[in-house]
């Protein structure tokens, strides 16, 4: 396989992987309104746990890490996703019960920093700053894949997983559960007045979203075979935010578009471009600036994102058109009534 295909399939992998990550953040932020500024932390937990589930016992590997259970591929990934979900429960119990919006966001970003420092400095956990490496490639032995054929193969696997997760997510967001999430996003006080247990619903959304984060992280671990703290600087959360804000909050197709534009075209493609002579690394650094500018431009000119949120119309829910529909007070009628009232006040 020549170099070009290697690049293409790497890009394809990141497109699908960030689609999964974007779906996870979207259900939390886009659907339920939870500003999860610690999102990348959940991704990292998924990645590390997938890694230590897959690696053999650490003795003799030259690395230090917990567990080391040599579990086969989909199992280790699932454990990674579920661990991220379990962590979400802990975080929700601490932070979500009492805090809302900006205060919650501040607590979460602090939490992300704490988690980062622990993983970066406490070596026995996930090998500290060196991170995990030499993580076995899934199916490489069984299918006799070499380094070149593994990349398109795993991009395909990720595509299948992304498709499955997209199907599940669209079922959820289109269901009454998704509607209740959006109600909480729009006004949690009203949702509570209508009998919704806001905390419970937010907890649900956190668990689902964090599972997606964990799976997305685990796939990165499996794809690259290594994962260390430079891969999940707390600022990386905002790349995922950029994906969903550019693509379109609350719209699963928009998320795929966002993943394509931000992650594939802006984050990863430039890494494959030839360096500008005399300015090594300039392109990568420009990257972050370009994403920032794009984000600002989007929020200014097209806040709904490239693909706007779907309006759930009655007909699309299977309701038949009705005739004789009773009187609707139009704006004009209301204004006329008001003018009448001010001219001759009721006594």
């Amino acid at each position, binding site marked *: 396989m020549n170099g070009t295909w290697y690049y293409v399939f790497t890009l394809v992998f990141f497109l699908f992987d960030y689609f999964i990550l974007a779906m996870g953040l979207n259900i939390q932020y886009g659907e339920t309104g939870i500003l999860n500024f610690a999102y990348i932390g959940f991704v990292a937990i998924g990645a590390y746990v997938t890694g230590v589930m897959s690696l053999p016992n650490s003795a003799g590997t030259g690395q230090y890490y917990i567990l080391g259970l040599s579990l086969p591929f989909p199992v280790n990934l699932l454990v990674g996703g579920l661990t991220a979900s379990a962590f979400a429960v802990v975080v929700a119990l601490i932070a979500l019960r009492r805090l809302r919006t900006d205060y919650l966001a501040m607590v979460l970003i602090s939490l992300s920093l704490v988690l980062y420092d622990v993983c970066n400095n406490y070596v026995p956990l996930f090998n500290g700053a060196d991170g995990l490496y030499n993580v076995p490639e899934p199916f490489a032995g069984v299918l006799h894949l070499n380094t070149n054929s593994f990349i398109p193969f795993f991009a395909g696997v990720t595509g299948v997983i992304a498709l499955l997760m997209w199907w599940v997510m669209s079922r959820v967001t289109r269901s*009454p*559960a998704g509607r209740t999430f959006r109600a909480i996003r729009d006004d949690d006080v009203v949702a509570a007045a*209508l009998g919704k247990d806001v905390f419970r619903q937010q907890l649900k959304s956190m668990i689902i979203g964090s599972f997606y984060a964990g799976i997305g992280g685990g796939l990165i671990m499996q794809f690259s075979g290594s994962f260390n703290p430079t891969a999940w600087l707390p600022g990386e959360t905002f790349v995922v935010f950029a994906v969903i804000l550019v693509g379109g909050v609350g719209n699963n197709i928009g998320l795929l578009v966002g993943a394509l534009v931000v992650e594939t075209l802006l984050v990863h493609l430039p890494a494959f471009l030839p360096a500008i002579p005399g300015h090594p690394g300039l392109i990568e650094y420009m990257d972050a600036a370009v994403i920032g500018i794009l984000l600002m431009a989007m929020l200014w000119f097209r806040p709904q994102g490239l693909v706007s949120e779907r309006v759930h119309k009655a007909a699309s829910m299977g309701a038949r058109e*009705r005739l004789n529909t009773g009187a609707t*007070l139009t704006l004009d009628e209301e204004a006329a009534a008001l003018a009448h009232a001010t001219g001759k006040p009721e006594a």
Partner: protein
Amino acid sequence: MKSPATIGSSGGGAFGEAALRCEGVTKAFQGVHAVNGAGFDVPRGQVTALIGPNGAGKTTLVNILSGFMTCDRGREFIGATEVTNWPSHRIARMGLMRTFQLSRELGGLTVLENLLVAAKDQAGEVLWNIFLRPGMVRRQERDNIERALDLLETYGLYRLRDARASELSGGQKKLLEISRAVMAQPNILLLDEPMAGVNPALIDRIGGYILDLKRDGVTVLMVEHNLNVVERICDHVIVLAEGRTLAEGRLSGLRENEQVVKAYLGEVIDAGTVR
């Protein structure tokens, strides 16, 4: 005005069982008593008005009764169940629905979705059911949609069913808020100034809806300043002043009460208008 005088009935006795009752409810904000020992019965199946001068503690009381604030002292009962300081969603599930003084629409949802959210006990809110019992979820959803559309027809919002709620006018938002609460099939409806900022034509319509709800057996407690409205649609009036129940009874009887006139009605009569 130290001792609360009571006119007519002292409790729910004369009206049969109380749908909602509070006793000695007290709430202080940094030492200032917003509600100071308010207690009354809301008779079942009737329309009761909660009136009183500005600062009497009406909205605070509504917030306490609906679980959006906790009280420092006092008790609250829905029927025979004590619900003192229960969280709002549990009180809502007991069948007490409230509306807000300034309409609060779920702006990103359509008008129809605003109503659908309110439907009780939705199987589709449980994630397992979406995948394991899709038929049941679909059937229930279809019934809810039909009922919501019926309500939208009744409240004259049918044509706006697919509009985002944030695009509605003020009056339409009021109607949406009431119809959304009705969608939840309440036993008790707590309306916080349903007529505030509403034009006279719409006041008549909302008044009609409230009487329809009464006919359907819903108990209504409404905070209201417009005494014409109170006179026309309310069976029972509770006067709140300085956080206490000052008097209760029919409006005609209360007009004769010196304390009430001094505390509230006088204010209005002096101003020469009842809005």
